């Protein structure tokens, strides 16, 4: 078990029992070419082109990059700049729906007969990225660097952010797909051992999985682990520590301790790509918080957030925040014309919080030190960042901060610690250039 963290009220009962609904395809989708970590994809369609559902519209432009596909069939109405969460923008392919939903024919395959290289190339072509939020290209994760060896694969089923239930519903409703996806991951990595990490609030899933594993013959030794409900249990480094007791070295990757972690929906995407030849064109997300009806929706990538909010009966008033992702790490959006991305795990509507206008002084209560899952000293770091002492921030390892938000959450002075650390990281990176 990792040190630190917080037991949060999870608010999952708001949407936990809502069966996944297919959100109808809208008349228009906006598909950004940069919705993953790495180099933006290169557009290969132009205005006026007709595209099918699942057709490639943006090529992967490097090793750490990803392909992008049309999520509806229709006509490309143009390449435009669109808003992204965090105030960024990206070139996006805008497609007008022809209402026919004609899909590119997928290739059916049997995963057991495929080699590692074949699986990786399918995953790359299908534009699969980490769907837990980080959106790191999955093909890169599956490619083991020279000199490293994978000993096990870990399925991250924690969904430790409060409010979100999308992964829970996917595991509940599509368990065979999740498990097949995880088997494919194990196969591609060439490992025998797999772990599934679930938080204690998903015991039902754990039993379903154990039952499934006992009935399904597979060449892998899969162990389901129920972990304490402690945020950020689903943080990659924390999960690895909890599951196999190893600490990913600072600045390192999970593969440095012999494992690779995949999210629930990433596994499903891998299964769909490998077994049915379907690229990533939709994902399941939770719409929750101050909405008339909370929902778990399967949404086409590129659907504007505004459409989903309308559908769920959300009135955006002054004092309402719309957040993409969970409440701890999600990004508040400044406009609802932002499209749903591959890494969008939820749309959360919350009331604005009453927080002090100015940065209040730290009273050194030490609560942030207790909860920091990376064992940093946020109180000190926050002070140095406040005085722009980037050098000290660097010495105190601000770059190890995973921005989980525990320190800001617990701070009685409501100091914007995460914000200060993000700023410090940017400044340090600038100075290094």
């Amino acid at each position: 078990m990792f040190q630190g963290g917080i037991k949060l009220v999870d608010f999952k009962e708001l949407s936990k029992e809502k069966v996944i609904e297919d959100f109808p395809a809208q008349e228009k989708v906006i598909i950004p070419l940069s919705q993953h970590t790495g180099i933006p994809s290169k557009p290969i369609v132009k205005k006026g082109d007709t595209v099918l559902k699942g057709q490639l519209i943006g090529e992967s432009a490097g090793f750490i990059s990803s392909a992008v596909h049309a999520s509806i069939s229709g006509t490309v109405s143009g390449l435009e700049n669109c808003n992204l969460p965090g105030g960024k923008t990206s070139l996006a392919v805008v497609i007008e729906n022809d209402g026919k939903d004609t899909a590119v024919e997928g290739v059916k395959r049997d995963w057991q007969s495929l080699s590692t290289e074949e699986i990786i190339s399918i995953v790359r072509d299908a534009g699969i990225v980490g769907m837990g939020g980080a959106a790191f290209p999955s093909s890169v994760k599956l490619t083991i660097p020279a000199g490293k060896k994978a000993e096990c694969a870990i399925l991250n089923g924690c969904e430790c952010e409060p409010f979100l239930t999308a992964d829970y519903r996917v595991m509940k409703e599509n368990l065979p797909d999740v498990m097949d996806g995880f088997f494919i991951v194990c196969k591609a990595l060439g490992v025998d051992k797999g772990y599934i990490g679930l938080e204690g609030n998903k015991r039902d899933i754990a039993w379903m999985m154990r039952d499934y594993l006992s009935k399904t013959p597979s060449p892998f030794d899969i162990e389901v682990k129920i972990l304490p409900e402690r945020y950020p249990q689903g943080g990659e480094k924390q999960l690895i520590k909890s599951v196999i007791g190893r600490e990913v070295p600072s600045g390192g990757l999970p593969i440095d301790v012999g494992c690779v972690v995949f999210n629930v929906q990433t596994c499903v995407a891998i299964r769909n790509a490998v077994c049915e030849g379907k690229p990533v064109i939709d994902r399941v997300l939770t719409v929750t918080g101050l909405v008339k009806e909370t929902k778990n929706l399967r949404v086409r990538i590129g659907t504007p957030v505004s459409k989903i909010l309308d559908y769920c009966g959300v009135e955006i008033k002054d004092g309402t925040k719309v957040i993409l992702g969970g409440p701890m790490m999600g990004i508040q959006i400044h406009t609802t014309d932002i499209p749903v991305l591959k890494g969008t795990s939820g749309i959360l509507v919350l009331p604005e919080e009453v927080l002090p206008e100015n940065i209040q002084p730290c009273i050194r209560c030490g609560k942030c030190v207790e909860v920091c899952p990376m064992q940093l000293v946020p109180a000190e770091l926050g002070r140095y960042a406040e005085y722009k002492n980037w050098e000290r921030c660097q010495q105190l390892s601000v770059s190890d901060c995973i921005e989980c938000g525990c320190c800001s959450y617990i701070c009685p002075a409501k100091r914007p610690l995460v914000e200060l650390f993000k700023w410090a990281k940017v400044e340090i990176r600038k100075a290094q250039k």
Partner: protein
Amino acid sequence: MGEGGDKEGTKMTEMRCSPHIHSSETTTRIMWSVLIALLPAAIGSIYFFGSDALKVILVCILSCYIGEVVSHLVFHRRLKPFDGSEAVTGLLLAFVLPPSIPLWMAGIGGFLAIFLVKELFGGIGFNIFNPALAARSILTVSFPLEMTQFVAPLSYRVDTITTATPLGIVKEGLGGSLPSLWDMFIGNRAGCIGETSILLLLIGAIFLLWRRVITWHIPISYIITVAILTSLTGQNPLFHILAGGLVLGAFFMATDYVTSPITSKGKIIFGIGCGIITFLIRFKGSYPEGVAYSIIFMNMFVPLIDKYTLPKKFGYINKKGKK
């Protein structure tokens, strides 16, 4: 939203960085919790020492607020929200003053605690010394007579009013007979206003521990250190815990966030250090009591303790990352 934004986009509330939820704990709530925790002992002090105690308490709190307002006027500092921290300092200062102290001296103490010890160092969160204890120390060197004259509790006042504290009786052979341990536990003895009733202080301490405002590290390591050292030298450890200001100091003064270490390990070192110095002053020093000075002394070591007790960061074990 930029001008290029889609017309479907709706302008929304002020943008905030994650996390978007926060715990309900605030600085103000912490300060009020401390005040509530001190309340039983405050009421007890009025019961034991009468209206003198009440007057000193009120003067101290008032003068702390005056110190705050004056510092804002002098330094043109933004007035911070009313968070009760001055009241905590004032009440704690009153607790470590003798009930018979002239009120103007108490007033000077309260003013200096905030103006000199806290605001001159940068205000809340930046002071090096515990304001109440530093102010008490200033008063002790400025008015040695008034600061060391104690009165008996009301129920024991027969003919003479001034008497000695239990520690004074033991140390300096001052006149008077020692109160029973039970009297010392419930607070029926001479001493500073808020230090006498161990029972009422412990009620407050348990409240603070339950509210998680303080942790056990400092008070327990402090008290255990004193208990061990006194029993090693053949004293009654219980007497030394009940006498003087140890319980008040350990639970309410040494635990002051700003002037104590930030990590658990550091807190234990701090508590042990306070215990050793308290013991040394009580046995080797010229004062009968050493709690105030030991905490002030250890306050100076806090940055150093913090520096050497940084937690072991995640991912720095060794190259392989294995345990």
